């Protein structure tokens, strides 16, 4: 792995170098939100110290610089996901807003009573609730691709679920609760064969491996800055230009219009049509810095590191007596969701916390898939590019401690 040294990488993340509860911090909750490298923190400070102004509207030098930074960030995102055109990149608050945007614009226009929206059993609530709401508004029907006991999609069920009434397939790229990597390229091919557009929730994918939206072929791709080492409050909706252009606006306000009279409003071009109001400038600047950071490391190197560490962690956790992994897909990303004997995940989380280890416990905003596995909650350790084998070893030691407390 040339050019990737995890110990070097760790130095870029100031937050990691602290003690909590008298122990060195072990952060295994990056699937909830990732930590930020100094380069991102610096970019935010620099923006406010030198370039801050509103965008797209001033004639002065600062507004020019801010506009350049903002539109430059759009181009950086385009490059990162290999979109054809920066106009296909819409800045939003995060994955959640990106999906709501598609449901309320594309959805309200093209999906009606009796039509079907196809999702999967393993979606995050962010890719369930906006569609549920749309169904309630329009009388459309929500259909669900089931998962099997490994946590893989039952692909054999897909073709039958793609019917004449299916108007969109909305599917996660990586499950945040199970770590399953979904074959979205194959699903897109099958959906397109039936004329069905595809939205991919990439919140857990873009941080772990290279994503090429042209190669995937999907119509929409959504992700959040904060999970990929950028700031909170910024995210991306990628949409194929012809799709975006055919969509009505989302929110109304400044920036999304060309002209306004009291009688008539002419909407702006894409992507501005979907960016009403002053956008999250610092967020876009910080996201671009995060992307440059990832590009410098090389997403292939990041992917190799994450893969290797996941294999190590999977093996290490298997050695803990009574530990049962929830989600054992053949192709997995850096998420380890598990039950420990009959100890409730909440109790696991509390004891780990006292050891300085941060994990997530709960239903991970994915209750339907929890129901499939008949558990109300799991413990979830998630790995990122700054995690080490030592972090995993500390987790294993702490899990033994949990077992001691509960005998």
């Amino acid at each position, binding site marked *: 792995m040339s050019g990737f040294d995890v110990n070097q990488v760790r130095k870029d993340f100031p937050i990691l170098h602290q003690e909590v*509860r*008298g*122990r060195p911090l072990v952060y295994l909750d990056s699937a909830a939100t990732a930590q930020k490298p100094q380069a991102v923190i610096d970019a935010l400070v620099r923006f406010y110290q030198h370039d801050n102004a509103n965008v797209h509207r001033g004639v002065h030098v600062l507004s020019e610089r801010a506009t350049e930074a903002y539109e430059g960030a759009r181009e950086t995102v385009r490059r990162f996901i290999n979109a054809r055109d920066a106009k296909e990149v819409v800045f939003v608050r995060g994955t959640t807003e990106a999906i709501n945007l598609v449901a309320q614009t594309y959805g309200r226009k093209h999906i009606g009573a009796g039509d079907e929206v196809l999702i999967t059993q393993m979606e995050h609530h962010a890719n369930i609730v906006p569609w549920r709401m749309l169904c309630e508004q329009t009388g459309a029907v929500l259909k669900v691709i089931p998962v099997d006991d490994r946590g893989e999609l039952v692909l054999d069920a897909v073709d039958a679920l793609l019917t004449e009434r299916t108007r969109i397939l909305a599917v996660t790229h990586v499950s945040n609760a199970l770590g399953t990597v979904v074959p979205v390229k194959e699903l897109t091919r099958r959906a397109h064969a039936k004329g069905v557009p595809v939205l991919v929730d990439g919140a857990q994918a873009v941080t772990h491996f290279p994503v090429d939206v042209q190669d995937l072929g999907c119509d929409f791709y959504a992700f959040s800055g904060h999970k990929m080492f950028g700031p909170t409050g910024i995210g991306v909706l990628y949409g194929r230009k012809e799709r975006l252009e055919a969509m009505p606006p989302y929110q109304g306000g400044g920036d999304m219009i060309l002209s306004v009279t009291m009688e008539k409003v002419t909407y702006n071009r894409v992507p501005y049509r979907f960016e009403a109001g002053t956008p999250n400038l610092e967020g876009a600047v910080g996201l671009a810095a995060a992307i440059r950071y990832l590009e410098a490391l090389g997403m292939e190197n990041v992917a190799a590191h994450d893969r290797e560490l996941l294999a190590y962690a999977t093996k290490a956790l298997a050695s803990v007596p009574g530990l049962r992994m929830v989600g054992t897909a053949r192709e997995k990303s850096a998420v380890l969701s598990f039950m420990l004997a009959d*100890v*409730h*995940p*909440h*109790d696991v989380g*509390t*004891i780990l916390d*006292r*050891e300085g280890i941060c994990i997530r*416990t*709960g*239903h991970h905003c994915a*209750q339907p898939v*929890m129901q499939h596995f008949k558990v*109300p*909650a799991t413990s979830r350790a998630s790995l990122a590019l700054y995690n080490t084998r030592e972090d995993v070893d500390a987790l294993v030691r702490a899990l033994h401690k949990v077992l001691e*407390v*509960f005998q």
Partner: protein
Amino acid sequence: MSASDDLKDLYQEVVLEHSKRPRNYRVVEGATAEAAGHNPLCGDQLVVTLKVEGGVIKDVAFQGQGCAISKASASLMTGAVKDRTRAEAEDLFERVHKLVTEGPESVDVDALGKLAVLSGVSEFPARVKCASLAWHTLRAALEGHGEAVSTE
């Protein structure tokens, strides 16, 4: 290490014992009131059933799923409020709530009897909800339906 002392205070023998073998884990026969409690953050769910006669809690039980703290707290609660009046149960809740939020110095711990084992929770702010779920549910049952059975 203070970290492990805190843990020992939280997961005291009695707490673990009650969480593994909760008392009154059933549905009260001929219940006059019931309520469901839910902690959406962690998915804990329980149902408290009661029999109130002449203003006195004659029988109380719970069922549900949750972490060790919420189960132990529910189990201990059922023992503590039996044969008490509503006002007494309410007063007890207030003191337990003080205990788990502000710590053992804030209340007369001895007067709380077995419930005193919940004192360790005060060092774990994230777990206060777990310890109080059963009590909130009890209050809802007492207030909501009075002596009328809600499930006909």
